[in-house]
């Protein structure tokens, strides 16, 4: 890999117009990545998903040179219907469209040469890789007291014109005081066997509200890694919903720093997998000051040869009295070859806190199936009804009614 990645990196540098300073920084990130390479199961964070092996097995050798000079036509048929929205369209990792027509233009600032700041470069080699290879980072700032009238849908499309096996993309959001954003990430893959590396950073000022719905629904053969970092000031709220279902492999990491009092974070997720799929959600909620709250609910429905993992860490700083932290995961294993792993982790240094976690897994309840079938439903109908019922309460956690209905339709949940 090393030769290939270095050659590809040189090519990127040559064909882009980075400043000397940027090039230095990018080189630094490349070297950081090369020190450790792709994460393996030896790392605690990756014990359930050996990315290095997964890439080797499914893709083989990666290539990294993504030709950003190539312009892809935007296929408008992928756009969500029935709901007016703003758009950012990524095709093969390159932004092809940014459209905020529904908003007051002086309330949104879009900056397309945002410089990555020197943070979060801890020991996450994938973020280093991302920093080394992304050519552009958009920063979206929502101004004080502004609530976007319509949601923003970020389309993550790929097509078979992509030459590189890996591509990286990055977005930065700043939500100023009292502002709010509804953000839907929609994955739509026309390429195969790519490793897609996504990094989002969110900065939520006082009273800001972020709702991020990640919908990976369409079946595809890609390997996806996505990292959300969320910084939260006083009274801010973040709500993250993940539908983890389409990709061959997917890992969503959500790191949330509750650093303002009365800030809260909600993470809800659904894994719906089969046929060799392997997905993971890992959350780290850092309660850093008094009176913060986090809530997490993750449910899995796992078919043949599929595997999901949920690692949920709640960290409570010694200053963070009155923390309220909760997490629950439940899984239905539809086959003896399906596997669910949960690793809850509570690290608590304050004494006046309320934290709990729970996890349960089992097969579909035969008695319930019998009950439904005795009413004339066939096995398939009964199974679907039970699974939809099992997942419904996660979808019900979506606080935005419009988007909740959209998600319900997308995943075929009947009320």
């Amino acid at each position: 890999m090393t030769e290939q990645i270095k050659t590809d990196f040189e090519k990127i540098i040559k064909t882009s117009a980075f400043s000397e300073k940027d090039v230095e920084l990018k080189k630094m990130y490349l070297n950081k990545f090369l020190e450790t390479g792709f994460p393996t199961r030896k790392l605690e964070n990756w014990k359930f998903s050996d990315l290095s092996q997964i890439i080797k097995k499914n893709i083989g050798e990666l290539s990294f040179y993504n030709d950003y000079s190539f312009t892809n036509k935007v296929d408008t048929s992928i756009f969500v219907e029935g709901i007016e929205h703003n758009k950012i369209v990524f095709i093969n990792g390159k932004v092809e469209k940014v459209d905020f027509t529904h908003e007051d233009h002086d309330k949104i600032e879009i900056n397309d040469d945002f410089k990555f700041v020197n943070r979060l470069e801890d020991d996450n080699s994938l973020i280093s890789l991302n920093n080394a290879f992304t050519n552009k980072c958009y920063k979206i700032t929502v101004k004080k007291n502004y609530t976007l009238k319509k949601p923003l849908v970020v389309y993550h499309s790929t097509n078979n014109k992509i030459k590189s096996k890996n591509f990286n993309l990055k977005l930065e959001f700043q939500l100023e005081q009292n502002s709010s954003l509804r953000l839907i990430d929609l994955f739509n893959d026309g390429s195969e066997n790519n490793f897609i590396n996504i990094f989002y950073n969110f900065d939520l000022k006082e009273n800001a509200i972020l709702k991020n719905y990640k919908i990976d629904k369409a079946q595809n053969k890609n390997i996806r890694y996505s990292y959300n970092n969320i910084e939260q000031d006083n009274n801010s709220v973040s709500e993250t919903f993940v539908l983890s279902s389409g990709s061959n492999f997917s890992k969503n990491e959500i790191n949330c720093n509750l650093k303002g009092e009365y800030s809260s974070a909600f993470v809800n997720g659904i894994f719906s997998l089969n046929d060799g799929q392997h997905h993971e959600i890992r959350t780290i909620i850092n309660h850093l000051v008094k009176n913060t709250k986090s809530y997490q609910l993750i449910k899995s429905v796992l078919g043949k040869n599929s595997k999901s993992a949920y690692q949920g860490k709640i960290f409570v700083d010694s200053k963070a009295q009155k923390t309220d932290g909760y997490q629950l995961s439940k899984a239905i294993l539809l086959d003896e070859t399906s596997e669910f792993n949960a690793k809850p982790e509570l690290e608590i240094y304050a004494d006046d806190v309320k934290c709990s976690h729970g996890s349960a897994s089992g097969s579909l309840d035969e008695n319930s199936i019998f009950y439904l079938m005795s009413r004339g439903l066939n096995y398939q109908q009964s199974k679907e009804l039970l699974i939809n019922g099992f997942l419904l309460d996660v979808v019900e956690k979506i606080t935005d009614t419009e988007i909740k209905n959209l998600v319900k339709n997308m995943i075929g949940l009947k009320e």
Partner: protein
Amino acid sequence: MLKINNLSANIEDKSILKDFSLNINPGEVHAIMGPNGSGKSTLSNILSGKKGYEISGEVLFENNNLFELETEERAHKGIFLAFQYPLEIPGVNTNIFLKTSLNAIRKAKGEKELDAIEFLKLVKEKARELKFDEEKLNRQLNVGFSGGEKKKNEILQMSMLSPKLSILDETDSGLDIDALKVVSDGVNTLRSKDNSFLIITHYQRLLDYIKPDFVHVLMNGKIIKSGGPELALELEKKGYENFN
């Protein structure tokens, strides 16, 4: 309508039903009484097609070999079981479940499926007859229902589906006297020269409201005595221990 010939059932080498035979003709109401653990629920489950039993013998329903039919096919042919312990199904709306069930059965019978409006009209009418809280129809199936409400919901389902053979497994237990009357009315409304009932109960009380044609006493997986309604009274007086 239903012919059970020498039915024996085991679970994991434990013999539960032993050479059980019973014949139910169209329009008849049969009551089975028996102590806890005598095999009443096992019998109902087997008739509805629950898996997990080792079975020998023969059961014919309108000349179909019941053991060749899946659970849902038995429902399509008109067998209904009111469960002793109705299950709670989280996340499944009661109305949607009822509509799916009704239409599955109508479709199998070659009848037109009901649209939302026709369905709601019917279910509301039935709910009113059974004094079943209509608001509950929009809740998750049996979730947060009281014991009595769950039982009433079974009878509501029965009324909606109008089965040919209704098996009521201890539907009366847990019902107060008002609910008992309403449930009995539901059964009596469905009674006709074509529809039959197998009423499983512990107590004679229910049989004051639903007059059976035959009463059978089940002990240790066997019918030890059959007779008319007077048998229930005798049983009530003597108790199961001193019976025989």
